[in-house]
């Protein structure tokens, strides 16, 4: 079927400016397949139902809109945590700033290297979850990524990984346009933590595909960089085996445009998937969490906790769906999306959805939008806490349920102090 003319033009314009990276046999095939998916679907437009609340124009455009660099002298996140650092500057691997990629319990390679080989295990994962996730909703930006990603990590966790793998994304050029694609295979019984931090580029398109085998565990905590003008479109895919665990938390403070998509499939019985996010926006800030969780096994649990704090015209979007297939009995699905609006100018748009084909399930969802609780504020002030800090405390109170999803205490503390600093800066 022909694409609408406008979509066709926008897609052609973007693709004309790009070339598929040189690749060995397996990656060449994956990239060409992805490219044909993109041409068939076309890149997203504001008319697409799935992009109703978030205009994709600047994500799709030929050139990345400029984004000023954010100077700050804050202590880097996760600084006190023993971790293996992998640094990308505007999407380009920085060997000097990175640690040696050897770590007990895991093999870490780079996409830029393994994609040159003719065969590699990554072929079973690279673009595979992305392809599966094109149904029932198309995600052309992720297919675009599979086709053109220049680098990324290819990780295979085989046991208890000795320490977290920390991806650090630096932004040093105001016009950078980065496309990174990570694939992570968590083998049976293995356990790995992946951290991400940084603005990455003026415009960032990132895909992470995570395949968690039976009894495997994947922990993920990311903080999207503070640069006010940066744009990002990310996709996080997860496929979960029996008794596996998948936990992901995202902190987003600032950024002109962020669309984080999460696509999870629970395919093995007794699996557990938690995704959470805390977003803080002040002014020119548009933040979109789009989540799709498919239950296709018995007795699985999924939990979505998304909280947004918005002020001065900031916009928050949540589209979250739980799909329970006919055989997914005893599913326990929970979804909450909430916004705290600190003034009348800000906006929260939520579209929570449940689609359930099994009869023995417990699924609940809720979405709220509200202001600071005046009674609580007075209570705090009556104890001597001035209005500013009291409001901050209530903001943290609002975000607590999301932050509680971070299992590791040291990492949670780090995220919390970043939040507190953000709030304190806004008080001046």
């Amino acid at each position, binding site marked *: 079927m022909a694409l609408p003319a406008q979509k066709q033009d926008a897609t052609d314009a973007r693709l004309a400016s790009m070339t598929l990276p040189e690749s060995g046999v397996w990656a060449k095939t994956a990239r060409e397949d992805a490219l044909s998916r993109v041409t068939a679907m076309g890149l997203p437009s504001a008319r697409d139902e799935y992009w109703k609340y978030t205009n994709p124009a600047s994500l799709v455009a030929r050139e990345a809109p400029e984004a000023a660099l954010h100077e700050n002298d804050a202590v880097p996140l996760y600084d006190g945590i023993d971790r293996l650092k992998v640094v990308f500057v505007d999407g380009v691997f920085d060997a000097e700033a990175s640690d040696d990629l050897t770590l007990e319990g895991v093999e870490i390679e780079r996409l830029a290297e393994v994609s040159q080989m003719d065969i590699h295990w990554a072929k079973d994962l690279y673009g595979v979850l992305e392809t599966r996730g094109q149904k029932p909703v198309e995600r052309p930006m992720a297919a675009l990524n599979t086709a053109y990603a220049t680098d990324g990590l290819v990780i295979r966790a085989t046991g208890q990984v000795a320490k977290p793998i920390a991806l650090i994304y630096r932004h040093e050029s105001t016009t950078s346009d980065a496309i990174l694609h990570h694939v992570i295979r968590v083998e049976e019984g293995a356990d790995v933590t992946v951290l991400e931090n940084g603005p990455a580029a003026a415009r960032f398109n990132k895909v992470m595909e995570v395949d968690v085998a039976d009894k495997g565990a994947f922990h993920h905590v990311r903080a999207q960089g503070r640069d006010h003008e940066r744009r990002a479109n990310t996709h996080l895919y997860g496929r979960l085996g029996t008794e596996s665990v998948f936990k992901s938390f995202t902190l987003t403070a600032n950024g002109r445009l962020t669309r984080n998509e999460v696509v999870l499939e629970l395919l093995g019985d007794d699996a557990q998937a938690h995704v959470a996010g805390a977003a803080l926006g002040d002014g020119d800030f548009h933040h979109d969490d789009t989540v799709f969780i498919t239950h296709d096994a018995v007795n699985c649990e999924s939990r979505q906790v998304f909280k947004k704090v918005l002020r001065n015209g900031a916009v928050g979007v949540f589209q979250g769906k739980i799909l329970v297939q006919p055989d997914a009995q005893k599913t326990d699905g929970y979804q909450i999306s909430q916004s705290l609006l600190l003034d009348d100018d800000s906006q929260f748009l939520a579209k929570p959805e449940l689609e359930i084909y099994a009869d023995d399930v417990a699924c609940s969802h809720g979405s709220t939008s509200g202001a600071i609780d*005046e*009674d*609580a504020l*007075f*209570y*705090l*002030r*009556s*104890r*001597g*806490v*001035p*209005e500013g*800090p*009291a409001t901050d*405390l*209530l903001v*943290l*109170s*609002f*975000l*607590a*349920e999301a932050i509680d999803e971070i299992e590791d205490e040291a990492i949670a503390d780090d995220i919390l102090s970043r939040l507190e600093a953000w709030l304190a800066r806004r008080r001046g």
Partner: protein
Amino acid sequence: MLEIKNLHVKLEEEDKQILKGVDLTLEAGKVHAIMGPNGSGKSTLSYVLSGRDGYEVTDGSATLEGEDILDLEPEERAAAGLFLAFQYPVEIPGVGNMTFLRTAVNAQRKARGEEELSAGDFLKIVREKAKSLKINADMLKRPVNVGFSGGEKKRNEIMQMAMLEPKMCILDETDSGLDVDAMKLVSDGVNALRGEGRSFLVITHYQRLLDHIKPDVVHIMADGRIVKSGGPELALEVENNGYADILEEVA
């Protein structure tokens, strides 16, 4: 300590006069009790004194140690030494009781130009006060008032009072919802704070609390005014005969 003169208060949002000329003088170190039927304006008085939004003072004044407090922000009144134990303590999910206490204590110290308490000193004082109020470690760790029973909430109010060491304590029906043991704990907590020139305004319906916290003066409030004041025997009279006689007598 606290001087209230001809205080008139209406609701901000509607034309409803609630306090219709309250006069009350409370000297340093004294305990005054306010009793009165439901809806007579007791809680309103406590809120207006502590600075809650939604009320408009149309006439009169209130001073704490000679300083006009009605134009101060709630936190400034707190730093000046005023404390209200709420009739309905507020639940704050996601904020640990300890964090809340430390933030409050240090905010007040900062406002007074004093040094903040070190984490170690703070912990020591908290443990000590918590022990005497039978507040266990779990209650200190839990979010403020969340999942607390009525009695636990009230004990938590007294805990905050003990930590903040205010000069002027207002207790709004701190005894309601307390069983005999909890009443004893709360009263002991309050009595431990008596002295050092600290004053108390105890709002209650019941003589029971006043058996434990012996008042110097008892006021009866009705329809936004203090209609009668007297010694502790006034509370007994209320206990035995209810308010009807008194209200009739002053009508």
